[in-house]
């Protein structure tokens, strides 16, 4: 009679299914009564899994014989060397486009913070300056609506030696486009050009036949025309049209925003 027969079925099942008892048996501790069969089985399983190591395969044998070197490019070593930190001079760097984007983001963030801290008067002055600068830039580029562009050109050419495109500056573009489409009417263009020439004191800036008066071939002013008045009107900035104001409006610090780093972004390791 075996030990298992000593227990009624229910008692045996309850004890047998006890996780703690199972755990003790599986760990190789002294088995409870009725578990001798399992001890023999476990011993055989452990015996089958012990002994000497099998002969390694070709790839593993090479690895065991030579290890792996620390040369660059060896996958094992590259990963292993990174585990204790990159070598000096091999720090990971951000791609250039990410550096630029980070710098722009930092600048815009700092600018927004500065603007948020300005008073109402400073904000109003800044708004006017930005509007004037934007108008100047648009006027200089000749992209204002026709009447506005004409007015802008009149004022600028009155108070400065510069010449800017007027409201008819799309004439040349239109002629060029028509020519490409094959729909050029020479008579119509001729009359329109004549009409424009009669209306405009100087040569049309968009169809130049030579450097405008007062401008070197490169477009750089060489001197004020004789008809330039002594001083500018109060409503026009004294300097040449520019996309940026000549100086910061009151309330803005003279230097760059504090959040903008002086040098390039530092590479993160």
């Amino acid at each position, binding site marked *: 009679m075996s030990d298992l027969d000593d227990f009624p079925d229910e008692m045996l099942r309850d004890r047998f299914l006890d996780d703690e008892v199972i755990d003790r048996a599986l760990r190789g501790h002294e088995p409870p009564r009725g578990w001798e069969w399992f001890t023999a089985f476990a011993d055989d399983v452990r015996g089958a*899994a012990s002994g000497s190591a099998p002969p390694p395969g070709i790839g*593993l044998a090479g690895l065991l014989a030579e290890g792996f070197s620390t040369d660059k490019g060896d996958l094992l070593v590259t990963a292993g060397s990174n585990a204790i930190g990159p070598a000096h001079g091999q720090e990971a760097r951000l791609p250039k486009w990410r550096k630029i984007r980070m710098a722009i983001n930092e600048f815009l963030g700092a600018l927004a913070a500065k603007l948020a801290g300005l008073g109402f008067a400073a904000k109003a002055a800044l708004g006017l300056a930005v509007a004037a600068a934007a108008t100047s830039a648009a006027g200089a580029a000749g992209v204002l609506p026709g009447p506005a562009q004409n007015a802008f050109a009149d004022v600028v050419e009155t108070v400065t030696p510069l010449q800017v495109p007027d409201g008819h500056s799309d004439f040349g573009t239109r002629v060029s486009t028509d020519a490409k489409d094959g729909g050029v009417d020479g008579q119509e263009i001729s009359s329109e050009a004549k009409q424009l020439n009669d209306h405009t004191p100087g040569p049309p800036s968009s169809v130049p036949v030579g450097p405008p008066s007062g401008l070197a071939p490169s477009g750089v002013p060489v001197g004020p025309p004789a008809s330039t008045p002594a001083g500018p009107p109060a409503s026009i900035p004294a300097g040449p049209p520019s996309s940026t104001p000549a100086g910061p409006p009151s309330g803005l610090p003279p230097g760059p925003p504090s959040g903008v780093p002086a040098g390039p972004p530092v590479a993160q390791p």
Partner: protein
Amino acid sequence: MSLGEAFDGILGAAQVGAPWALTRLYDAFAPPIHGYMRLRGGSEPDELTSDVFVGAFRNLESCAGGEHQFRAWLFTIARRRLVDDRRRNGRRMPTRPLDDAGTDVTGGDVEAEALDRIGDERVRRLLATLSPDQQDVLLLRLVADLTVDEIATALGKRPGAVKALQRRALATLRREIGRKGVPL
């Protein structure tokens, strides 16, 4: 074979590619890995064991912890290799009923006789009466000495499911051994 206190130094040297350290790790842990492969019916236990160590050595830098954690990690790799092996070969370990193993037990205390000698082949036949998951749980407990939680991680199951698997596995084994006896 346990490396004991020397394990940390050996692992550190192995992580930078020292051949002697890699060899020590292989000598210490290859036998149980090989036994697991053999008892689970791997098609080529030697090759599978080598594959396990090549894979492990490739990823040594990701290994942290002590010897027990290293052992658990190795057996996790081993089980994955075994699953791959089974998929490749598209077959399962052949199952034979205990009756076919040949019985020369003529009476007496069947269990006592079973306690004396259960050879490798007979262990495999007993394991073959279990489901693959039950085999995994028993072998990972007995051969790899993993805990229920570690096996749950290796198998992707909950600890409760692992306990249920080992309960059913032991119940089946006890029934098989007690009812049929283990042929000697």
